[in-house]
């Protein structure tokens, strides 16, 4: 327990203190990074201890008998802490060279301080034991991340993105407040473990209110609108933390409330599963149509939140139907995907940051051929891409395999639930297929082929600390892919704590352990088999090429040898036919200015995919609201006398009302 406090203290104070040394930016940055790293290492140490401890530790402070703060670490918290500390450490290392402009040294140091505060706020969110602490930490997390987004505040889009994010995060928080207020008024307790005794219908109301709030943080479709704006605007290592870890706090919130209330109604599982399927498919679909690399990755976060929700939804369905193996596998798979997604998404955002540093642009169709110029970034990005597609032998496959195994426990379920599970399986397969399409586009267009612009031709490799961070995360992807057991155990323990409040007894620890070990073992077998087989055939290939002539020439173009880089396929054309297939959900808009006249001027073509949720929110909600508010503008007269008049009038009306009431 003390270690985690020390860790939070280091994370929140050392980078802040480092600002004082802004005259020597290098020393200050080293100090700040060291503080964050040390904090993360101590945090991981305490996670290790919590996972092995039998008892749940908790501490309560009482301030003036008004505010009572209490904190406790159970295994669910520990699992999320693991994700937070791992990714924060990698991002801090990455940020050391990523933000390296001398003229912005003060801003860089403030950014670093906010990064530490964000990490400690997230740690506080997952260890908070009562509503007050939780909400305070939640707000601290939202606000510090908001400031992190506006690092490049000179740019209008960045300010716009931060504004949208601010609206969403605060509106979402209001729903969480409402849910907690309802819970408090019914149980009379601020504790985050109360609520198990409420009637099912009330539980549903509380859960739905909180779900809206948490889902807007997690980026569940259709509450994801802020995400594709905020992630591209933020510096890459901040995007890595926000997309990898912060949005998972929404998932944590959902799970924490689920544990607190221990609902038995099937509606919860079905709702979560439904949202998961929709987010998963639409997220990857919109990602397909993006032209900006970081925006594309942001939409992939929505997709992966969908996959996590599918896992958790299967878990909840299994739990409420008494299908314990399904519950346990679904929860474990969903939780593992929380960690796995954090790792590969942080890696990919860092790769995108290196691309933007090295080639000066994030526009997919202006890049190309970066694999030869940025070898480390290219290879680590390739690893991340294979992982995010859920392909073996990397870590994305591990969690998806667990989730599939959960879905394939549905034989005894009723027809409705069987069909819902079938839908989940089909959508997982389709999501996987579309993700392959999307990431082959990124790898193929950005990293392979020939550079499309001079910028891309002169791209340079990322700085050392950026490379270290990416290599570290890529190694983790491989390690989990080959040895899932190391991280399956924490997920298993956390999943166990999810099932405690339920009506049906969880299956015995031994059986759980055996199932987990068996599933992990199969994944390891698959990975090792793949590696061995590749090694064997690589050896055969070297034999086949022994003493053979190899020659190098240009690409075959039907006899045409003067091909320029511009005749290559572009990302937009690559994605076009798939987007066409899904047109009602992903309308593509084109703006064309054709060359016209005897002396044609510059022609222009611009295409973009519009997000139906965003269109709906703007057209049907924001604009009518603004119009309605405008019609009430006459109330604001702008003169003090009128406002005093309003106050007097309001008091009079209240007096009359109370008098009549009696």
């Amino acid at each position, binding site marked *: 327990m003390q270690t985690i406090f020390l860790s939070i203290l280091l994370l929140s104070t050392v980078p802040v203190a480092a600002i004082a040394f802004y005259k020597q930016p290098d020393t200050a940055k080293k100090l700040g990074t060291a503080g964050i790293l040390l904090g993360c290492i101590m945090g991981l140490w305490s996670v290790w201890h919590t996972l092995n401890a039998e008892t749940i530790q908790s501490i309560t402070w009482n301030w003036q008998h008004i505010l009572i703060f209490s904190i406790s670490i159970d295994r669910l918290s520990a699992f999320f802490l693991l994700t937070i500390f791992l990714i924060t450490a990698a991002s801090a290392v990455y940020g050391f060279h990523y933000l390296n402009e001398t003229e912005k040294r003060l801003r860089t140091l403030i950014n670093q301080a906010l990064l530490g505060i964000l990490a400690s706020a997230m740690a506080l969110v997952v260890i908070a034991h009562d509503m007050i602490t939780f909400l305070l930490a939640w707000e601290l997390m939202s606000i510090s991340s908001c400031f992190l987004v506006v690092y490049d505040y000179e740019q209008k889009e960045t300010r716009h993105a931060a504004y949208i994010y601010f609206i969403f995060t605060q509106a979402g928080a209001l729903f969480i407040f409402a849910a907690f207020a309802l819970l408090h008024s019914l149980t009379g307790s601020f504790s985050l473990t109360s609520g198990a005794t409420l009637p099912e219908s009330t539980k549903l109301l509380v859960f739905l209110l909180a779900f809206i709030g948490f889902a807007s943080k997690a980026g569940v479709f259709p509450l994801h609108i802020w995400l594709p704006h905020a992630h591209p605007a933020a510096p890459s290592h901040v995007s890595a933390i926000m997309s990898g870890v912060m949005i998972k706090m929404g998932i944590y919130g959902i799970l924490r409330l689920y544990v607190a209330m221990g609902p038995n109604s099937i509606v919860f599982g079905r709702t979560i599963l439904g949202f998961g399927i929709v987010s998963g498919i639409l997220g990857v679909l919109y990602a397909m149509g993006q032209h900006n690399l970081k925006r594309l990755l942001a939409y992939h976060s929505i997709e992966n939140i969908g996959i996590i929700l599918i896992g958790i939804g299967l878990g909840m369905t299994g739990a409420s139907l008494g299908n314990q193996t399904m519950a346990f596998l679904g929860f474990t798979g969903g939780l593992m995907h929380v960690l796995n997604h954090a790792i590969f998404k942080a890696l990919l955002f860092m790769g995108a940051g290196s691309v933007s540093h090295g080639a000066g642009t994030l526009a997919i169709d202006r890049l190309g051929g970066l694999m030869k110029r940025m070898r480390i970034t290219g290879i680590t990005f390739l690893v991340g891409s294979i992982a995010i597609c859920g392909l073996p032998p990397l870590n994305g496959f591990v969690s998806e395999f667990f989730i599939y195994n959960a879905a394939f426990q549905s034989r005894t379920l009723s027809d409705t639930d069987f069909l819902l599970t079938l839908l989940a399986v089909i959508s997982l397969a389709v999501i996987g297929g579309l993700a392959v399409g999307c990431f082959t586009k990124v790898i193929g267009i950005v990293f392979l082929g020939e550079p499309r612009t001079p910028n891309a031709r002169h791209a340079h490799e990322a700085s050392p600390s950026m490379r270290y961070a990416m290599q570290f995360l890529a190694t983790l992807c491989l390690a989990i892919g080959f040895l899932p057991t190391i991280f399956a155990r924490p997920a298993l323990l956390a999943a166990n704590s999810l099932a405690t409040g339920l009506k049906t007894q969880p299956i015995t620890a031994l059986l759980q352990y055996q199932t987990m070990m068996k599933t992990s073992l199969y994944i390891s077998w698959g990975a090792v088999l793949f590696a061995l087989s590749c090694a064997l055939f690589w050896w055969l*290939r070297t034999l086949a090429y022994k003493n053979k002539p190899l020659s190098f020439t*240009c690409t075959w*173009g039907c006899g045409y040898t003067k091909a320029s880089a511009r005749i290559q396929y572009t990302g937009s054309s690559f994605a076009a036919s*798939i987007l066409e297939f899904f047109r009602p959900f992903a309308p593509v808009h084109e703006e064309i200015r054709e060359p016209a006249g005897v002396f044609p001027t510059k022609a222009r073509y611009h295409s973009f995919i519009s997000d139906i949720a965003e269109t709906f929110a703007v057209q049907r909600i924001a604009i009518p609201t603004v119009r309605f508010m405008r019609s009430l503008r006459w109330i604001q007269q702008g003169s003090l006398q009128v406002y005093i008049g309003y106050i007097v009038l309001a008091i009079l009306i209240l007096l009359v009302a109370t008098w009549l009431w009696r």
Partner: protein
Amino acid sequence: MALEVMRVLTSILLCILSIAITPLLSAIITKTKAFLVGKQGPPLLINYYTLVKLLKKGSVYSESTTFVFRTMPVISLAVSVIAILFLPIAKAPSLISFSGDVILVLYLFGIARFFLIIAALDTASPFEGMGAAREAYFSFLCEATLFTVLMLFYKLNGTLSLTGYFTGTDAINIWRPEGAILILIAIALFIVLLAENSRVPVDDPATHLELTMIHEVMILDHSGPDLAFIEMGSWLKLFFYATLIADLLLPNLSPIMAIPAFLATLTAIYLSAGIVESITARFRMKLVPKFILTSFALAFFAVILVLEM
């Protein structure tokens, strides 16, 4: 113990034999097509000659390419061979089998496809990019069908492995009480076979006009042993899908009967692929998704029917 050793030895033997005969089986399609248009066609051993010829040659590489281009043939062959290890050939239990192996195999084909597509984009050729985009498009539709079929098989006998599906007393085949429904699945799988292995009417392996091709255009720049690896990989993949259908069509037989029956069924499947190829034209690209989705509709309909039984 001796029985177990016998079983493993049989499996190994079957795997090696199948890998050895796949080029011959693929030549059946070529021969059928030639026969139906009144030509003599190449000899049945043509694919072995091609392999030997390619393996003897060196390679020409495009200057645009990177290591990805060179890794792809290896991964593609490695994956196909692994898939054969999990396959219950002639209804005998496969060499390796565990619960969930079928998901692993389908996802391994996924990684082979990932590398196939990026290797095509690696050449910076517009033709290959076009083929790559189509490959990415059509394959996710096939996956929807395949996973629906898996879910149906799971519902029928409660296992999640290829060996579990097709061997043992509760094996899935069209001679079961639900057999009539499984005919739908056999048709769906045949459509997937045509689509995944780039056969007519989805793709034309014989055409020389790159604009209309999918698979062939993606490997335009590969030559020599690399191309031999890719060809072998795709023959094995075709064999994998054909075996799934053959296992589905065959009743439970004694081991001595099973192998000839299996070979006959397999030949019939390759023959029908050849006949389809001869009597139909390749679809316009816009029609291909509808064709593949037909297989999904069949599979989904079969699930509904099974639930209603």
